[in-house]
């Protein structure tokens, strides 16, 4: 996907003035936060499972090469073709190659964020192959020529009226007003694609090393169809998706479905091992798995490694006050919210996403809900440190902080400065004690007053108190 993270501030400002988005995001926050909280109560040992999940993911990352080789061995033994891609471009070329070799003209896709990273759809379409997104949210944004704004609910930023209008324009059927009717219409429109596609492309929530299995977590049924109906199935997965055993996947799923949508279990868990077997009555003739680096090895070897534990639940963004107010598009790439603030600079380059790790209060609502305990604020802080090290921060900002630090390490000067600031501030606040306008401080005073200082600094008050008592 094209990166537009450098437009963060502008897009965030636009988002803040969009009442439809505000309504959509309020709705998202209400349902997702409450949904997760309720479903988590079902598990009397939620925090134990969470700690175990973190450890298991770390264990897998620490043994990643071994597990990937094991996965490849077992998948191949079951008739799957395993490919490796170092970059997003390689993924696209491999998929196109598989499509061409098999005279594929129609592809159905179930959701893959990795596919969004590499721009797979556009690449295939440019090569003359029809690619149809089948997850309802992905279908909507494909038709609207947009990018997803959430990793689980990609069209959350769209109102039902907008979608009704879109369907009316694209489907040529009478305009629907009811969400249930729109959903049924989507089913009717997409059904022929499922039944006629030559190839299905899916992502993978997890790869199971022990059995050579690729698995996906879905609710709609499109994932099942994509991995069963067409004669060729291609699954694309980042290297970090591998876990040792089926048991590992099973216990982590208890956290994933609850953290993502507040469900005790998602509708369909689909475990695929190899292509159609002798005697099978459904399944593809070929099953290809593409294992993808695309920047992950660099993160693995960096102090951001914990971000690779991510199981793509979306809880962090659902609970993030910044995301809740601006939505996903300002982040400018595939992953929004706190995980996006870390992965985007890690994958597309620090200098291309400067605002993202800074646009956070470090409140840690994300870290508290992350099912695999990724210390997101700490990672954002590390990225801020890297920006400073590489000289990417504006000189004014650096100068200001350096001046502050210098004054704070020179108490005599500090006291003098703060004494003056306190008196000036008190005067500026007037009788109401509120500063309405701060030269150079419009970022605060545009929408907030600044309560003025009391006028004396504590140091002086305390000294007086001491003298009085002595």
């Amino acid at each position, binding site marked *: 996907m094209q990166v537009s993270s450098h437009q963060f501030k502008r897009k965030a400002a636009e988002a803040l003035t969009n009442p439809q988005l505000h309504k959509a995001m309020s709705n998202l926050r209400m349902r997702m936060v409450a949904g997760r909280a309720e479903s988590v109560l079902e598990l009397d040992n939620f925090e134990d499972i969470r700690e175990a999940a973190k450890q298991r993911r770390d264990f897998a990352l620490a043994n990643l090469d071994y597990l990937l080789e094991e996965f490849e061995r077992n998948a191949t033994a079951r008739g799957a073709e395993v490919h490796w891609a170092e970059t997003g471009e390689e993924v696209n070329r491999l998929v196109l190659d598989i499509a061409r070799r098999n005279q594929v003209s129609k592809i159905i896709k179930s959701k893959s964020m990795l596919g969004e990273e590499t721009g797979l759809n556009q690449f295939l379409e440019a090569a003359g192959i029809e690619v149809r997104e089948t997850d309802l949210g992905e279908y909507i944004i494909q038709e609207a020529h947009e990018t997803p704004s959430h990793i689980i609910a990609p069209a959350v930023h769209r109102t039902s009226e907008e979608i009704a209008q879109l369907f009316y324009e694209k489907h040529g059927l009478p305009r629907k007003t009811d969400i249930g009717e729109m959903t*049924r219409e989507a089913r009717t429109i997409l059904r022929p694609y499922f039944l006629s596609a030559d190839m299905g492309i899916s992502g993978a929530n997890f790869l199971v090393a*022990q059995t050579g299995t690729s698995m996906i977590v879905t609710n709609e049924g499109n994932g099942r169809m994509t991995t069963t109906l067409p004669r060729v199935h291609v699954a694309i997965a980042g290297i970090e998706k591998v876990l040792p055993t089926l048991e590992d996947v099973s216990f982590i799923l208890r956290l994933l479905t609850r953290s993502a949508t507040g469900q005790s279990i998602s509708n369909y868990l689909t475990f*695929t091992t190899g292509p159609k077997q002798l005697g099978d009555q459904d399944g593809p003739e070929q099953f290809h798995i593409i294992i993808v680096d695309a920047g992950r090895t660099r993160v693995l070897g960096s102090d951001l490694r914990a971000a690779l534990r991510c199981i793509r639940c979306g809880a962090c963004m659902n609970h993030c006050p910044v995301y809740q107010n601006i939505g996903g598009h300002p982040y400018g790439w595939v992953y929004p919210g706190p995980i996006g603030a870390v992965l985007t600079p890690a994958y597309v380059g620090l200098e291309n996403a400067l605002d993202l790790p800074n646009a956070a209060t470090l409140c840690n609502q994300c870290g508290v809900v992350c099912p695999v305990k990724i210390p997101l604020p700490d990672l954002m802080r590390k990225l801020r440190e890297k920006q400073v090290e590489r000289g990417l921060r504006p000189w004014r900002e650096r100068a200001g902080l350096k001046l502050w630090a210098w004054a704070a390490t020179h108490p005599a000067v500090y006291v003098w400065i703060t004494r003056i600031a306190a008196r000036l501030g008190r005067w500026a606040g007037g009788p109401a004690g509120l500063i309405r306008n701060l030269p150079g401080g419009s970022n605060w005073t545009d929408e907030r007053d600044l309560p003025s200082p009391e006028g004396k600094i504590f140091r002086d008050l305390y000294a007086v108190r001491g003298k009085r008592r002595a």
Partner: protein
Amino acid sequence: MRARDNILGKIRAALGRSRPLTDTEAAPVRMALRQNRRGPLPTMTWELVPRFRERCLSLSSTVDEVASLELLPAAVKRYLASNNLPQGCVCWPQFAGLDWAGAGLAVQARPATGEDPVGVTGAYCAIAETGTLMLLSGAGTPLKNSLLPETHVAVVQASRIVRCIEDGWDLLRREHGTLPRQVAFISGPSRTADIEMTLVIGIHGPYRVHIILVGA
């Protein structure tokens, strides 16, 4: 092979090695791959059948019971008729010998197409913890019958209800040894909330899942 070698090489370098794990170093991961150790399980003190039933209902499935398989055709007919549903069924071969005609149903034992309104399947086993069906691909078990039709009727032997998914894997390992091409865990009718976060039951997969427990 170049990409494979490069990626594995970069992974090793990232992990502070210039080579694969030695036998000693690989002992923990080798053991993990053999042991099938479960993660922490929540407390599960409920009875299997009541729990399974309750969970299925919470997922918007419907649940019926018959004492034995002979009574299945009548139960299916009852369900379809009382819900005004089309009655053309396809079923798995294991049910072909039942008296469908006697119940007034035309049933064909074959994989479903896009036109078949009702698919009747069995289940390898069922998961009480979550109200989930575990289906395996195979010679007599076309998964399409649980996927393409608008109505999915799933026949579950009460004796094949296990506690949790982990128990399902254990059962599969004991009875089959290896995984089939696809293991499908199904928890209710298909659903989406992609439009304004509004839950809609029924999208690409079945609109209805009707579970008939046998011998509960």
